[in-house]
């Protein structure tokens, strides 16, 4: 059988905000660009982002990109790379204005400017009064952005491979990445897509935890592809638990609900955040609020029959504000809980939401790996952006409203660097057969028949292990046991089988390959977490309760080979301004 091959200048894997923003930049520059996505583009998980995108437009309150930078560095618990953070915060107003020009239906202020709301961890004057920096389209900002970007790509005639599943990167012996091997989910047929550059924009891996806000498709496919190609993953121990997932279910209730004035209460009706963050209160950083909720419940002040959650009270906002500014979360709350937030508070609990870690890149989106004495040597032809990447602007904890910003700024920056790369690399390198064959073997592996465990119970077990052994509060002992159980699970996955062996739209096979990807991401997360003996941002160790800048102001790098850990320094030097040195973090 001959393998179908297609050739493009630039290939993008993933059609969320990062992938589509990059694709648009490339298409507009008349590069031959293809986007591969396992779901139809507007079904990518960017669509579910609610609250908004941060940019210091100063439409509502005074603001500056420098304050935004300070907040982001502080929010990251000083683990973010300050050159990338400066770049992002400076670029933010420009990318938001571009979005508006692309047609995003932002909510508007009286004078017609883009509406901005308060979000957690935002301040004026480097840590003083609350800022209002989050640009919003009601509470459907991700939907508004993703659809507009897709629409602009249609106009620009970007080439889409819809419902194609990327199996693995093609990489030659010299280390150049030459595209991917994928398969058409509809026909089951494999295809090699050759490209001079490949951008991974496949999003996060929230499905490694049982209760999460993520789509079922957020299985860390790109991160796992990078690992298998020998690229380590950076800072995977930092997993954000969003303070307000619907208790027991996980659906997201945007931070914008608190930005509009909502607050959290315990079983006494007490606004407990006043004790944990006297200034910022309910708008402290997400890691701080999530821990506070977990502590309230642990100390017996939880709500409900099982005293296992807190309540988010929006009633005082009034029907008008809720229906105008938060219509989406009202709908979700009514659908999944039968609770109308106009009349009753919403039961919430911290829920796995976002991977701060990912594929290490520089601020041009180039994937960088340690080679001998250089901690950050670019992998030729390989780029990553968005939640799949770790640039690192979020460090140990991401601020709300910075993820939509990250995908736009670095999707765009990666595309600009790709255009430069294409000028110097005009020809395709020869296809690397061994690498293609390896990917095809991974696909064929699921044709195996006979006895074996099924995929779904294994997936459920994986998610339970991660929840029990690598949750909000962590200890060496509990995590070590988790690692042992994951090693066992890894072997069992190797022997698993699916029953459905048909070619046409075989979703069982897709799910099996997603499970393999989840496995690699879960292992990266727990091994990195076990390695980091301090508490910083979202990574909270009960056996190492303090932040330890002396030993741990550095990035973790997990490699698949032997589950090995390595480390590299944090880039504390911004591009043009003074560095923000680590300080005690209070809100």
């Amino acid at each position, binding site marked *: 059988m001959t393998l179908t091959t297609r050739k493009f200048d630039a290939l993008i894997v993933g059609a969320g905000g990062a992938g589509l923003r990059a694709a648009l930049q490339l298409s507009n520059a008349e590069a031959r660009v293809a986007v591969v996505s396992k*779901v*139809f583009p*507007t*079904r*990518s*998980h960017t*669509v*579910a982002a609610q609250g908004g995108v941060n940019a210091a*437009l100063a439409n509502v309150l005074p603001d500056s990109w420098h304050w935004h930078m300070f907040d982001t560095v502080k929010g990251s618990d000083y683990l973010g790379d300050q050159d990338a953070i400066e770049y992002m915060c400076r670029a933010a107003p420009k990318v*938001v*204005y571009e979005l*508006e*020009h*692309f*047609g995003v*239906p*932002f*909510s*508007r*202020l*009286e*004078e*017609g*400017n*883009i509406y901005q709301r308060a979000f957690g961890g935002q301040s004026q004057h480097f840590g003083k009064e609350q800022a209002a920096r989050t640009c919003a*389209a009601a509470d*459907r900002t991700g*939907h*508004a952005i993703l*659809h*507009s970007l897709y*629409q*602009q790509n*249609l*106009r620009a005639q970007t080439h889409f491979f819809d419902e194609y599943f990327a199996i693995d990167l093609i990489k030659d012996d010299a280390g150049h990445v030459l595209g991917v091997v994928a398969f058409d989910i*509809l026909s089951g047929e494999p295809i090699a897509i050759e490209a001079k550059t490949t951008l991974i924009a496949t999003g996060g891996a929230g499905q490694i935890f049982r209760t999460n806000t993520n*789509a*079922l*498709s957020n299985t860390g496919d790109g991160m796992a592809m990078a690992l298998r190609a020998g690229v380590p993953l950076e800072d995977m121990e930092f997993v954000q638990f969003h303070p307000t997932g619907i208790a027991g*279910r996980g*659906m997201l209730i945007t931070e914008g609900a608190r930005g509009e004035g909502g607050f959290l209460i315990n079983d006494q009706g007490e606004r407990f955040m006043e004790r944990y963050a006297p200034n910022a209160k309910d708008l402290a950083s997400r890691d701080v609020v999530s821990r506070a909720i977990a502590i309230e419940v642990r100390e017996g002040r939880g709500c409900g029959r099982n005293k296992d959650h807190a309540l988010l009270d929006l009633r005082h906002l009034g029907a008008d504000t809720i229906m105008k500014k938060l219509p*989406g979360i009202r*709908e*979700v709350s009514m*659908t*999944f809980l039968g609770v109308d937030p106009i009349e009753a508070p919403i039961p919430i609990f911290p829920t796995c939401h976002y991977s701060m870690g990912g594929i290490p890149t520089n601020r041009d989106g180039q994937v960088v790996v340690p080679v001998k004495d250089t901690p950050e040597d670019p992998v030729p032809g390989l780029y990553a952006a968005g939640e799949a990447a770790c640039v690192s602007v979020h460090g140990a904890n991401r601020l709300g409203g910075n993820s939509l910003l990250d995908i736009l700024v670095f999707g765009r920056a990666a595309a600009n660097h790709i255009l430069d790369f294409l000028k110097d690399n005009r020809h395709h390198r020869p296809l690397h057969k061994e690498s293609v064959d390896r990917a095809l073997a991974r696909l064929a592996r699921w044709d195996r028949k006979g006895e074996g465990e*099924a*995929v*779904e*119970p294994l997936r459920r077990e994986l998610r339970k292990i991660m929840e029990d052994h690598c949750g909000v509060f962590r200890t060496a002992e509990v995590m070590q046991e988790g690692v042992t159980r994951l090693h066992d699970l890894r072997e069992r996955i190797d022997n698993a089988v*699916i*029953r*459905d062996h*048909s*070619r*046409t*739209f*075989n*979703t*069982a096979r897709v799910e099996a390959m997603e499970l393999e990807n989840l496995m690699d991401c879960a292992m990266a997360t727990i091994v990195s977490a076990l390695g980091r003996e301090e508490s910083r941002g979202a990574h909270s160790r009960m056996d190492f309760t303090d932040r330890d800048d002396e030993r741990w102001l550095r990035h973790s790098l997990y490699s698949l080979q032997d589950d090995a850990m390595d480390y590299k320094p944090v880039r504390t030097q911004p591009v043009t301004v003074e560095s923000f040195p680590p300080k005690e973090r209070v809100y």
Partner: protein
Amino acid sequence: MEFSIYRFNPETDSAPYMQDFTLGDDLVEPGMMLLDALLLLKEQDDSLSFRRSCQHGVCGSDGMNINGTNGLACIMPLKDLKTPIVLRPFPGMPVIRDLIVDMDNFYHQYREAEPWLVNDSPEPEVERLQSPEDRDKLDGLYECILCGCCSAACPSYWWNPDRFLGPAALLQAARFIQDSRDEATEERLERLDDAYSLYRCHGIMNCTQVCPKGLNPSKAIGDIRRIMIKRSV
């Protein structure tokens, strides 16, 4: 809990058939949605095929025909459904396999509506202004998730899927016609002004009845007609 589900695998089946499934009562939890049940049924038989992703009604993947009405499985409470729950693929769209339909024509009609903002005036360095009142006109139009429930419930679209754009695409057309920032209103109306693209809508209103986001394509289509009539007089 009993289910009757449409099955068809083009590789092995000469014709589609309905298959009975049972979900044990011990697995049925309060507050469960239809998608939760389908995921459990897929554990019984991993060849049962359907699309799904976000699980809370924003990605639009899991549209299907549920007890005779189109809807999204992930936001359809099990307790509201009469058993046996009868699941079929969208009517009027070619079936690929089981509950998965070929949506190419649906996406084609979406593109035909040219659903992108056109504004060739010099770009300001900041945002283009839009009054809150003008922005309000987009509410009920921009929230579409392209699930296809509406077009797949529309007899006019079943009959003329190649020439009638269908409610989803027309909702998009309306979204840009109503946008104060868009400069292509004339061209948009011109393109819709034939016997089929728009005017095959007979006001049956199935689209509005089934929309899982509570949108009203029927009204949007009516509004386009009114604008068109105003323009011609």
